């Protein structure tokens, strides 16, 4: 299923934004000229990752400082021990879609 998330311009480069769709929460991260879509909650304790720090490709959780690699959702540093789901993102006519 293809879901429209937002316009490209809604997430400026170097920023991230949370979107709630179909009772799920997604985090769209814009790094350089690429967009990534991940789970919006930390896999450790459910913190809202949109409130975390984005430093290059590394996203730090705002609650317990777990770190994740944005490009593949992998854990860089605990306490989280499971990765974030990464969703395929499609850019079409200035709009972002994810494949679910």
């Amino acid at each position, binding site marked *: 299923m293809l879901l429209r998330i937002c316009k490209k311009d809604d997430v400026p480069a170097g920023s991230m934004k949370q979107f709630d769709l179909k009772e799920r929460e997604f985090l769209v991260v814009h790094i350089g000229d690429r967009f990534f879509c991940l789970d919006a909650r930390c896999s450790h*304790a*459910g*913190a*809202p990752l*949109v409130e975390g720090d984005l430093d290059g490709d590394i996203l730090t959780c*705002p*609650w317990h400082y777990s770190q994740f690699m944005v490009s593949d959702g992998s854990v860089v540093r605990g306490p989280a021990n499971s990765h974030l789901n990464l969703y395929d993102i499609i850019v079409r006519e200035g709009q972002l879609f994810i494949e679910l």
Partner: protein
Amino acid sequence: MPRETVVGNGRIAVAFDSKMSIRDFFYPRVGLENHLSGHELKSGVWVEGEFSWLGDGWNIETKYMPDTLVSRSRASNLDIGLQIETNETVHEGRDLFLKKMMVQNLAKKARKIRIFFTHDFHIYGDTVGDTVMHDPALNALIHYKRQRYFLVNGVTSKGTGIHQFATGYKELPGREGTWRDSEDGILSGNPIAQGSVDSAISFELDLLAKSKGIIYYWIACGRNLKQVEDLDATVKQIGVEQLLLESENYWAAWVNRKEINLSILPKEVIRAYKNSLLIIRSHADSRGGIIASCDSDILQFNRDTYSYVWMRDGAIAAIALDLAGFRDTSMRFFRFCDFVLADEGFFHHKYSPDGSVGSSWLPISGSKGMLPIEEDETALVLYALWRHFQKYRDIEFLESVQKLILKTTEFLLNYLDPDTGLPKPSFDLWEERSGVFTWTASTVYAALNAAAEFWRVFYNRERYEALNEAAASLKEAMFKQLYDHERQRFIKAVYLDGSRDLAVDSSVAAIFLYGGFDASERAVEGTMKSIIDKLWINTRVGGLARYENDEYQRASQDVTGNPWFICTLWLARWHIAHAKSFDQLEKGLELIYWATRHALPSGVMAEQIHPFTGDQISVSPLVWSHAEFVIAVCEYLEKYQELSSRSIVDEK
């Protein structure tokens, strides 16, 4: 000193200042029994023979962990080479105050570090007859008096408990307090003291160079020894780390109800919106009362506080909670209102969270049948209840608060002056003057309309029509007597001697806030323009003053008054209500941003701010400020949706 954060669970509320000290500790009700009574529970460190209280000399920043009522403070002191991070909360389901303190040794050598916590409890608010004792079996300190017990305990991440303790005397000649005993790094070990007492405990960490250690600390609250002992055992079994996680998840689940799609809002506004809801919730007692503020520093001015339930503030908080989808808290508030309502159908000035009538400075004059009340408080509760029902249509709940509807309606009708058609005089929302105020009349108009709607639901046509007619007559009387045709604006008030108060007052915005007049009517536009002209503060800080030459906590004679959050947000609400395009709507969002920018880093909004520095003035947080913020955001989102739908229709 403003409160940086407030944490609570509906039975306990704990507030912190900028020194990371606990300044208010309420139990067993939010707002009732502040066991510190203006004093504090503070922390200090001892390292290499030097002692330092957290506060002066430390660089401290306090915020909430996002989406939670768990505070996070970071303190660093490079002179002594320490960095401290704390998380503090009240467990949502158990009467436990919890603290996790992570201490980082910044030095390039191993060091022994002692952390001190002092406890200057004034149980039930005074110093008479307290006891504090050490329980060797638990290695804990217990402060108690009658039915209030506070058990203090802790453990390091290495499993070591309290290192040293002391109990002793305070506020007596030659007895400054046991906290002084901390400053040499050693506590006396005195096991018990009675009367005017306090205590201190310490933990010892052996930290390698550039390493961290953790202290877990808790205060169990109960009505007897067994309750606090049981809670202490629970913490030891589950662990503070897990209990903190439970609180974090509870509040994140609470605040993320997804009733409203926030994604079109800027991140800062979403954060402030959620913080506002959480801060309002921290001021809501489990029995329904919502106190105006837990900040007791105002004690210094008049020996009284804002820790009461004002029905005005509570009703506006209930409107905010309902709009945002938090009906449980608002329903408890309405039940509280139903419980405390006077037989005559009005609300007194203010209430304690146990439902008793609060202290008051409203004199009984008897003149023109005037009661010592602020009539808008009664009107706003009825209006808020209608707004609640309009959204949730919970007819069975309505049935449970029927007395509230029947009696307040009767009262409001009977309190109309047959000669003028306006409400009889009462005290104003600012609690300064008595008379007939545009604010009050607007809220009574809204309440009569709400009452009419209730009777429509109850299918009593006759009553519905009578109430509708009463509301229409009141509106006519307002326009006739409170609108100044020459100045093309509504005036603030008519006083008992017939004089008219022409000072521009932001509360006149009530004419559109409560539905009396449309935001785009000429009379409203003229009124709001006069408010902007006279009350906008033309400094770097900006914001809207309350009224012309406002002396309450006035910070400067160079401007007409201090900017207030609530008044500035009323202006935001007018821009939103008035907007016919996205450009016009932006003006509302700019003022919502203004409130976000002038809140503390934790998101706390005071009553007012300094017109030149932006520092928080008067009580902080003020629930009303947060409630107006939530209402403004909800109205913005609604209008955005409306304009979006309109533009789709236009395109088609």
